[in-house]
């Protein structure tokens, strides 16, 4: 499978990226004014107690040494101990990964489910009323702040209509799905508009393309032309756009997680930053970075699978 040969070689390119990110996060979090020890102790802090904690977590060591420890830990598959939670960062992250992944995944799926038909309707009626409607909806859809939208959805669907749970994550699969509907809808309402616009443009282009003309010239009815030729040829730019957006979603899930009380990594990260829990910030940043890299990797694979011309 020569076309997929990059699957073997590409991961090597991730290393410098991950390394770069580890350096940047490490320096960045330590540049932030504020002291994790003092933060932990709160208003009852005394100098001895502070010094004690700093020593415990190695915060009194020179920075480069701390970084070496961090690397050494990473090599051992550890990420150090959380100052706030007092447990291993990796263990902590593992408990919080699933909700974020589920949120991102369901949002993306929902967005695609919304964007695909919207774009199809718009593109096949380009310049007519349905197209204008889709364009206006999607131009408006981008502008809503997600926290506001989320709250509105809760008020409508959960409080007034009582159809869906207000917030939280749930324990069983069905329960989780029910809990994910509103948050992923919140994300999807804006993400899908971005996808719709991109897909619509690509489809219109593709509908006018020689490929479509050639298919029509051999007597293919319009739906076959559209679904078998136009759609596959429109996907590549959207796949890449989606990958970039998933990257953003992974790193920016905090607002939706917070509105819907989803116990994910975004919330963990924000609390860690606010309490200067260095190890956790570093750990989460690394995991986010790896996830983003992975998503782009998958997008590359999908691109190659869709378009045989692409070589990576």
């Amino acid at each position, binding site marked *: 499978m020569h076309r997929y040969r990059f699957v073997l070689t590409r991961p090597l390119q991730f290393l410098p990226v991950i390394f770069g990110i580890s350096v940047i996060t490490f320096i960045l979090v330590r540049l932030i004014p504020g002291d994790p020890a003092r933060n932990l102790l*709160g208003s009852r802090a005394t100098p001895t107690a502070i010094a004690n904690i700093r020593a415990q977590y190695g915060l009194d060591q020179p920075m480069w040494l701390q970084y070496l420890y961090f690397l050494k830990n990473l090599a051992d598959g550890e990420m150090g101990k959380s100052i706030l939670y007092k447990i291993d960062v990796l263990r902590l992250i593992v*408990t919080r990964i699933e909700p974020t992944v589920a949120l991102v995944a369901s949002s993306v799926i929902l967005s695609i489910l919304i964007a695909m038909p919207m774009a199809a309707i718009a593109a096949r009626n380009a310049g007519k009323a349905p197209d204008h409607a889709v364009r206006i909806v999607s131009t408006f859809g981008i502008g809503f702040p997600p926290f506001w939208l989320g709250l509105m959805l809760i008020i409508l669907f959960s409080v007034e209509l009582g159809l869906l749970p207000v917030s939280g*994550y749930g324990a069983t699969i069905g329960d989780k799905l029910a809990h994910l509907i509103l948050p992923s809808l919140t994300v999807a309402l804006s993400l899908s508009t971005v996808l719709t616009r991109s897909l619509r443009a690509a489809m219109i282009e593709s509908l006018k393309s020689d490929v479509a003309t050639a298919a029509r010239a051999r007597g293919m009815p319009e739906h076959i032309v559209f679904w078998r030729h136009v759609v596959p040829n429109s996907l590549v730019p959207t796949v890449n756009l989606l990958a970039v957006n998933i990257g953003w979603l992974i790193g920016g899930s905090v607002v939706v997680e917070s509105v*819907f*009380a989803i116990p994910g990594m975004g919330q963990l990260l924000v609390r860690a930053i606010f309490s200067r829990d260095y190890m956790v910030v570093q750990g989460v940043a690394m995991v986010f970075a790896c996830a983003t890299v992975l998503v782009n990797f998958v997008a590359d694979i999908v691109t190659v699978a869709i378009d045989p011309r692409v070589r990576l």
Partner: protein
Amino acid sequence: AGVLTIGRREDSTTFDPIKTAQNIDNWVFSNVYDVLVRVDKTGTKLEPGLAESWTTSDDGLTYTFKIRDARFSDGTPLTAEDAVFSLLRIRDDEGSLWSDSYKVIDTAVATDPRTLTIKLKNPSAPFLSTLALPNASVISKAGMESLGADAYAERPIASGAFIVEEWRRGDRIILKKNPNFWQADRVKLDGVEWISVPDDNTRMLNVEAGELDAAIFVPFSRVEELKKDPNLNVLTDPSTREDHLLINHAHGDLGKREVRQALDMAIDKRAIVDAVTFGQGTIANSYIPRGALYHYADNLQRPYDPEKAKQMLADAGVSNLTLTYLLRAGDEVDEQTAVLIQQQLAKAGITANLQKVDPSQEWDMTVNGDYDISVNYWTNDILDPDQKTTFVLGHDSNNNYMTNYKSDAVKGLVAKARQELDPAKRAQMYFDLQKMAKQDVNWIDLYYSPYINVARKNVENFYQNPLGRFFLEDTVKNQ
């Protein structure tokens, strides 16, 4: 019967009582652990906990506790040995955030399985109150040694009303009734779930929609609206929370007492109570909160008088007073207060430049004295006023709670009051301290506010004492 679900802002961080100083943890400790000495519902009296009774030697140095016949959640009996282990651990363990408060303990020994004897290094009036801190909860020595501290911190073996059944990090803590609790008959609930819902609005909507039985930290702005909902009870329980405006005495003109007094008069506390707390708070007149031990109700209150304040500033030779107002980001109430105070000060000719920084940094900056004024608050976690007084007036390591306030007379009195064992004399000492502080304007007292929680109508006896503890032993959830 039933499981009570309670929404709160954040999830716990640990179940190891000595390793946290956060209310969010302490409040759940009170459900899970038991302490030797408890604070009662009113938050003004100590009452027996695991210690059935106790005696104090005349010199105030030796305390002897009779340990109750109680058992841990795993069924093993709780002995004086466990109490010793717990106290020495909080004093000596290197991970303990509280060792300073327990350094006063000289020795703690189990003279027999039911008797605990503690010797202090010096007499300490607040000592008993410290034992009521959730951080001094009695932990199972055997349990800790067999599980190890990390595992114990996840699922502790304790002797409180409830057992930690499951902890879904970031989401909820699921507690189940502890059949081995020595007051197990008192507990009506089958279990409790502490659920983290960080967004205030979402948390309230959850209760309105009936998905949560109760929610804590109700924003002031929501009280009126929630009260209108026939399915809900809005509970305002007295607290020891007191909001104040810190003044950095070390910065220029703020060192002058007249200037500080002028500031006090330039601030309209009534307006703050109205606009920020939506009338839920009451104007504060002392650093010791109303309802707390030794609160001095007749303490001086300076009237709001911007003109007079202006005059006083002029008399003190201060013109164009410009102050940096350090503001904690992300706290709605603080921001609202800041906006109000800024406008009020402007009326007295004082310019306040708001500087908003994130909470952790704000904390750092106040400690380092990089501010002129800043709003802060305090809630007591022990009944005795000594802890707060020492921090605020006692010239300890914190520069008098970051204010750099200096008064030798006050300092001396704080130390004396700590060692005075006669309640009446002590009360007088604290009255004097409150008067002196007010006179010097160590800081500006703004308002007291209650704990505001909301519960659905079918929940009864859900209440929080002034020190923050939830008495879920008595809570009932009707179907």
